[in-house]
């Protein structure tokens, strides 16, 4: 059991939760994630990245988007209530050192896992350039937190409602052109990570992507999270979640993410997903 210390709504369907988890708070490092099971027994186990942690309070923060039945169940929990099971920290921590200049590209909800990585990169002495992108202004999260870390800060929206009207790959390409980039870390939708990798490839800039795949146990047992990296089968939960983006077979990964689409659609239909999210939105107003 893990108590919800605080719940806030960051955008239309994105929530932040601070959960009591002293052991995870103590051990977690940038780049790691947790598995959450909202209620017992019949609930799904879902992987969520750790956005922040407070070792003194003994809490971690997770940021998640309501995309299906299980994330909706989680969003419907209130401060003071508990989630039944939480396991972590999982995955290999991000390799942090003073690389020189690091570009952090965060797309949509991907800004959440990027936050601790950018923080750690900054702390290690790197110059940190942050590119944040989303479809529209309302969907941007953690802008202030990220701005506070960045030496250089670029915001893009697809519709131009805020910052530059560009895809994140456009400023990324400009930075590559300008030169002096030692490392790129990209986290966001698979398609964004794929094109970030394609953008940096011609410039031979080392690029990491943090993958969020289908998982059940999160400890290496089920193999549902398998991806092809450099022609080899890797498990995101124990070998990742970060991999050399130039080696990742993103197309197959995107294909596999659709594995349970028909079942998920049915479940979303059954629980009237959008309606329920909007209701949460109303309540928080």
């Amino acid at each position, binding site marked *: 059991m893990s108590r919800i210390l605080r719940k806030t709504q960051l955008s239309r369907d994105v929530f932040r939760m601070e959960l009591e988890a002293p*052991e*995870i708070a103590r*051990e977690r490092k940038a780049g*790691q994630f947790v598995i959450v*099971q909202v209620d*017992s*027994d*019949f*609930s*799904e*186990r879902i992987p969520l990245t750790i956005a922040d942690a407070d070792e003194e309070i003994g809490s971690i923060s997770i940021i998640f988007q309501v995309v299906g*039945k*299980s994330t909706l*169940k989680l969003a419907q929990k209130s401060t003071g209530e508990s989630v*039944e*099971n*939480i*396991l*972590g*920290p*999982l995955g*290999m921590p991000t390799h942090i050192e003073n690389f020189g200049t690091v570009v952090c590209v965060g797309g949509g909800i991907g800004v959440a896992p990027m936050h601790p990585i950018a923080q750690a990169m900054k702390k290690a002495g790197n110059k940190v350039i942050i590119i944040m992108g989303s479809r529209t202004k309302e969907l941007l999260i953690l802008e202030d937190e990220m701005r506070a870390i960045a030496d250089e800060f670029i915001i893009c929206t697809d519709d131009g409602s805020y910052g530059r009207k560009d895809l994140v790959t456009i400023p990324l390409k400009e930075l590559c052109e300008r030169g002096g980039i030692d490392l790129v870390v990209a986290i966001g939708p698979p398609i964004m990570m794929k094109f970030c990798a394609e953008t940096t490839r011609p410039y031979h800039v080392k690029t990491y992507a943090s993958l969020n795949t289908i998982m*059940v*146990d999160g*400890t*290496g*047992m*089920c*193999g*549902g999270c*398998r991806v*092809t990296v450099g022609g080899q*089968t890797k*498990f995101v939960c*124990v070998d990742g979640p970060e991999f050399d983006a130039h080696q990742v*077979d993103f197309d*197959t990964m995107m*294909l*596999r993410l*659709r*594995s*349970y689409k028909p*079942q*998920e659609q049915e*479940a979303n239909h059954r629980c009237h997903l959008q309606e329920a999210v909007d209701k949460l939105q109303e309540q928080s107003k």
Partner: protein
Amino acid sequence: MTYIPAEKLKEEAEQLLKEIDFNNLKPKDRLKIPMQEMPAQEPVARGKNIQEVALGYYEAQVRLEAERCLQCKNAPCIKGCPVAINIPGFIKAAAEGDYQKSVNIIKESSMLPAICGRVCPQETQCMMECTVGKSLKDVDKSVAIGRIERFVADWEREQGKMSLPHIAPPTGKKVAVIGSGPAGLTAAADVRKAGHEVVLFEAFHKLGGVMIYGIPEFRLPKVILDKEIENLLSMGVEIRKNFLVGRTRKLSDLIEKDGFDAVFVGTGAGLPNFMNIEGESLVGVSSANEFLTRANLMRAYEPEKADTPIFTGKRTAVVGGGNVAMDAARMALRVGAEEVYVVYRRTEKEMPARREEVEHAKEEGIKFMFLTSPKRVIGDDDGKVKALECVKYELGEPDDSGRRRPVEIKGSEFILEMDSVIMALGNSSNPLISQTTPEINVNKWGNILADDTQKTSMERVYAGGDIVLGAATVILAMGEGRKAAESINKLLAE
């Protein structure tokens, strides 16, 4: 083997019981008593439900089966048992109708009799050594030791009074047991008995390891598992679920910072193996671990209640020939597959699966394709599984395992239309402990190296079960857990 209705087995046994004069049985009379078949649910009906397939012996059957035992002085069966249960002893008590005595004899050696009676591969262990089977020249006609074991264990549970072992006074020593599968549970119980404090760490939200996520409800009902675990833990073991040693806490920290005097690692077989053939990433291909975990641990066989989805193809191929392959195939049938094929590259004789499971699978209509192996998985335009291309094999010379090596027959490729494929090819070791604990030496497959006292290369750390053995069985894991506990108790007595 053809299916015989449970009621008929009961009637026959009760009739026979009246005809035999048990006071004057000579060995040759005992050999004449027919081996008692396991009553089971009707095959077509059970393929559509999740309840236990094997129903357990009727009392008349237990008596008959137990009377088949010759009570050999040299007891060869005991040598076949990884935990050396006093088999003739418990069978004699069962024949006399003293079931409590019978189960107590088993419990001197095995803490989980209701489970072992169900899942042990008796035909390659105790039953293989049985004089009755040897006399009748058929291991399947050996005394059905596991079925008697199951009966007495179930009897005790149904009486509602499970006996607790004696626990020594507190020693002030503290032991960490990592993993709550058969190895960990056994080690925890034996260390606790010696009076040490025990903390049992489990990564999942439920205890039992492979017995909860892997072995299906229809073969090992969870209420039985829970009851056995509950009984074991009533000895006063502290449980820490959702705790992944290596990540939630480093193993070395348990010793250096948290004050544990010894650690037992029983983390089990980890990563599922794949064939590394074309098309294995297609939608509809999963490991048996994933398929069974979704079904069992996450309860996806109850789709009305469970949030975890499961892929329910109409035509499913399961690749492999072990118990896990049988479990996956039979589970696929129960979650909606209309046709299930088991594809195995050797013959039925080489299949490592428990005999009873293979028979049950056949009765349920699962089709077996022997001497066949997949070459690639073929997908449709949406990246979903459409077919499986296979190739035929023949048996060549024996290999290292003593089984004849299957050799591909060139040009024998053929296509099987399928919409889902489950890979049941065994597991490689989970890298978590070795990744995070460099002090522990592993072999080239990543299995932890342990000496004959189960001690690892790290001081105060012992290991056992599948993480040492590679994929093995519940009873072998229990045997190693027991041996490790003995070593730990010895270490802590110094």
